[in-house]
């Protein structure tokens, strides 16, 4: 009942705010601190949605984007990245990025004309990179004006990106549309947008993070068809040398979703269950930190940079609303909520 009342109030609040068409529009603060949850939706069905989770009272509000903006989020909501009071939602098959106000989810602008955008990495106030699944160019965009200003020819398709120092490390996850093997991390100098190096890792590097020592960690699945045993790579961004390689125990596992906590000392990833890895450790765990069950399969995880809580999504049958689980960093289940269709990326919103 309490949940219903809160939901009702939230909807009233959103409705009231969207009815007001005065100049204070963007000042509305209908969203407290919480978590944006992108619900991918089905490919070519344009049924992606945005949910908002409030960890203070464990409530979730679905369809936030449509209710506020009266337009659908689009086709396959892929990733979300935040800068100041703005979050950027990359909508893959719609070929665009929506910039929304973190305080009320209102659209501030959109970056359009992208081929198959996957992730956005903010370099500074006026520069961001957008990786692409089909194009071998990284789009250089201005996050303040929402314009595509340039592109960087990488010669490969691109996926996850992290910044270490002034350099950007880009994973070449997919082999689609390229002749080269998909086992590289490409290094770009963000000051002049020039590709400066490439570092060989395992096949299908899917996600990367930077730890508290500024080491770059790269998780490689070994290929969707299990070409290679999966591996976790540790790269020193100062020298571009691989300093450690940890090999998984079976070729059939498909680890992905590498995440790091706010303090940069614990890595989390998915491998039919949530695994935990201390950056000081020398071996991979063989049992998950949080297990999957017959009725609980994780597809995506996210780690709250402030509280350290772990969010995991279960898309169930991919045709009905999925579930979001929230765990304490000790592994204790804190909440379980119904989000939208194929819940995926998490955007932690503190403002």
């Amino acid at each position, binding site marked *: 009942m309490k949940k219903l009342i809160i939901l009702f109030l939230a909807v009233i609040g959103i409705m009231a705010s969207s009815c007001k068409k005065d100049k204070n529009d963007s000042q509305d603060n209908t969203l407290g601190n919480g978590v944006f949850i992108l619900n991918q939706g089905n490919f*070519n*069905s*344009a*049924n992606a*949605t945005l949910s908002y989770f409030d960890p203070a009272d464990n409530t979730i509000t*679905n*369809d936030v984007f*449509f209710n506020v*903006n*009266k*337009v*659908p*989020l*689009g*086709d396959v909501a892929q990733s979300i990245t935040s800068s100041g009071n703005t979050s950027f939602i990359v*909508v893959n*098959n*719609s*070929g*665009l990025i*929506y910039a929304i106000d973190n305080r009320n989810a209102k*659209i501030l602008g*959109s970056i*359009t*004309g*992208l*081929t*198959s955008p996957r992730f956005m990495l903010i370099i500074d106030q006026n520069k961001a990179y957008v990786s*692409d699944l*089909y*194009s*071998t*160019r990284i789009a250089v965009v201005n996050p303040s004006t929402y314009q595509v200003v340039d*592109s960087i*020819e*990488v*010669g490969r398709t691109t996926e996850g990106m992290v910044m270490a120092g002034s350099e950007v490390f880009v994973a070449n996850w997919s082999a*689609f*549309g390229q002749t080269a093997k998909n086992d590289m991390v490409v290094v770009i100098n963000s000051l002049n947008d020039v590709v400066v190096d490439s570092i060989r890792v395992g096949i299908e590097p899917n996600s990367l993070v930077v730890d508290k020592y500024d080491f770059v960690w790269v998780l490689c699945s070994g290929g*969707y068809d299990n070409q290679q045993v999966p591996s976790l790579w540790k790269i020193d961004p100062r020298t571009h040398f691989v300093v450690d390689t940890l090999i998984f125990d079976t070729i059939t596992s*498909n680890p992905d979703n590498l995440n790091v906590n706010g303090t940069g000392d614990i890595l989390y990833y998915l491998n*039919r269950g949530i695994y935990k890895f201390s950056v000081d450790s020398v071996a991979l765990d063989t049992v998950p930190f949080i297990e999957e069950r017959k*009725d609980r399969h994780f597809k995506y995880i996210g780690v709250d940079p402030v509280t350290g809580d772990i969010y995991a999504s279960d*898309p*169930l*049958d*991919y*045709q*009905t*609303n999925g579930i979001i689980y929230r765990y304490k960093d000790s592994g204790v289940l804190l909440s379980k909520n*119904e989000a*939208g*269709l194929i819940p995926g990326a998490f955007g932690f919103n503190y403002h």
Partner: protein
Amino acid sequence: MKRTAFHITLITLAWLVFMQVQGQMMSDTLTLDQFEVIGMQQDFASPVKKAVMDSTVMHEMNTSDLAELLASFTPVSVRTYGSGALATASFRGTGASHTKVLWNGFGINSPMLGSTDLSLVPNSFFNRMELYYGAASMRETSGALGGSVLLEYDNHWTKQPSVDFEQVFGSFHTMETTAGISVGGKKFGSDTRIVYRTSKNDFPYYNNAVVPARKMTQENANISNAGFTQQFNYRFNRNNEIDVVTWNQWNVQNIPPVMTNVDRGGDQKEYLKDFFSRNSVRWVWQKKQNKLEVSAAALYDDMNYKLQRSGGDDSTGPVTLIDSKNRTGSYSGKVKYSREFKNNFVLVTGTDAVFERVNSNNYDSAKRRTTFSVYGDLVKDFNKRLRLNLLLRAEMTDGILLPVMPLFGMNYRLMKREQLYVRANISRNYHLPTLNDLYWSPGGNPELKPEDGLQTEGGLKYIKKLSTLTLSADVSVYASWINNWILWTPGNFQYWSPQNIAEVFARGLEFTFRVQGTKGNFSYYGFAEYAFTKTTNESQVAERAGYDGKQLIYIPTHSANGFVHAAYKGFYLGWNVHFTGERNTSLNSEESYSNTLPAYFLNDVSAGKILMLKKARLELRFRVNNLFNENYQAVRWRAMPGRNYELSVKFNLN
């Protein structure tokens, strides 16, 4: 293996014995006098529901495709991705592959998809269309759990040669030419028909799925269809005739982006190119109460689906994301024997063999499937009021025997004076998995079982003939339980796989009212139809996920259509209204914009004039589709055209 061989032997033996008995009966009865059989032919006394498409409707929709005809004039729910784009049909709350399209008695559904793209069936190629609801097509085929559509071109054995030509000019750069030549006489007939249709489909629409919402023009939606049919009929003598038919068609369908994706870069091209050739030959021997038909068909289809986007490096050209090449061949043979016995008793029996072969780059290797079936259908009338019907069908696929599929039906004339009939039937029917379900790589599941339908239906039909008009009404209620319904679900790997997991309960009601009459120079025709359809997945999986009892997606609970047509001294006016109720687009229980599509009404109006000039007939027609410019979607975020116009000129020479 041993078991399979045993089954084959058993079936063959049973069949041989059966045929022998038939042979004896045949020779015994050949000398008997011909008896009155008219009563048996009347469809309103049928224990199953069949409907013949009215000639007025056929005329009205002559230059459009089967998808538009079914959507506007029948209770069949059509899921269309746009004008001239992929369209599939769902009868009575079932899936697209549960609707069979039978051409000259042969199923033309794709062996890969299990369904037929109805937008590729030009109505002008046929002069007879019938709808078989539920179990009504079990004599012709198994697996039509929803129903079937029959397509034929009847040769009229006319002495006069005739030529017809029709040219349509439509909005959005639409042009269609249809033409036909018929020659022949009492012994020989030749019918040639051609269709050529092109459309840019560049209709304006208001795109409220992007920011800012704006008026746009549909892009990359152009289509073209070019096809011809040739039919030869030859009558050797009073007892023997043969027909040979070929239908060949070349189709290109460009697929426009979803409304949310119009601001995407990469210059996407998505299209389907398809060529099919369908050929059949049939020999009919008829003597007194005996009729024997032997027919064969060869169906060939070559389809290419391509999805391209430009890459980053301009020199590399477009990146091909999907290039799906599929060649299917289907070869069938049928023998059908029917006999009318003296005591109001009809037997129809036959055997069918179908061999399907698929070469696809989506499969590991070429795949094939062979299906044999035998059936016997008995119809018996009692006291000219009661009719009972028993049909048994046995089928064997790749050596595996399915349980026997029975149909039991009855029809009873309730009153002696009034034409009021009550009918009921119960049946069991199996639908085989499609070859994609079995062999798609990755994911195909060769272990799939056939979908198992238990169906029952009851109905009332009333016909009243008055001096100048005929009224008829029909109401049906039905319930179908389909177990082992195949659904594709995500597996442990990064691909989906089909499983026999759903248990679908489809039930509903259909109501039709028809009126037809003339008064002097004035003639009129009209009908109204309503369908209530409730179709839900009641499996444990659905129960666990919380969507048991929830209407399956894209099937409206309420749908209705109506048509009035009036003619006076060569002038005519037709008005068609078609209502599609709200549809679920997801199985979520939450009431949200993304889970439902709103209901819509479509109105199409046409007016024409027929001029008779000795041997020639000239017809001018103007048609307005979507008269009230309804902004609607048949599939979520797929733009549909608003009000549009068609002008056609038709010329016949006899």
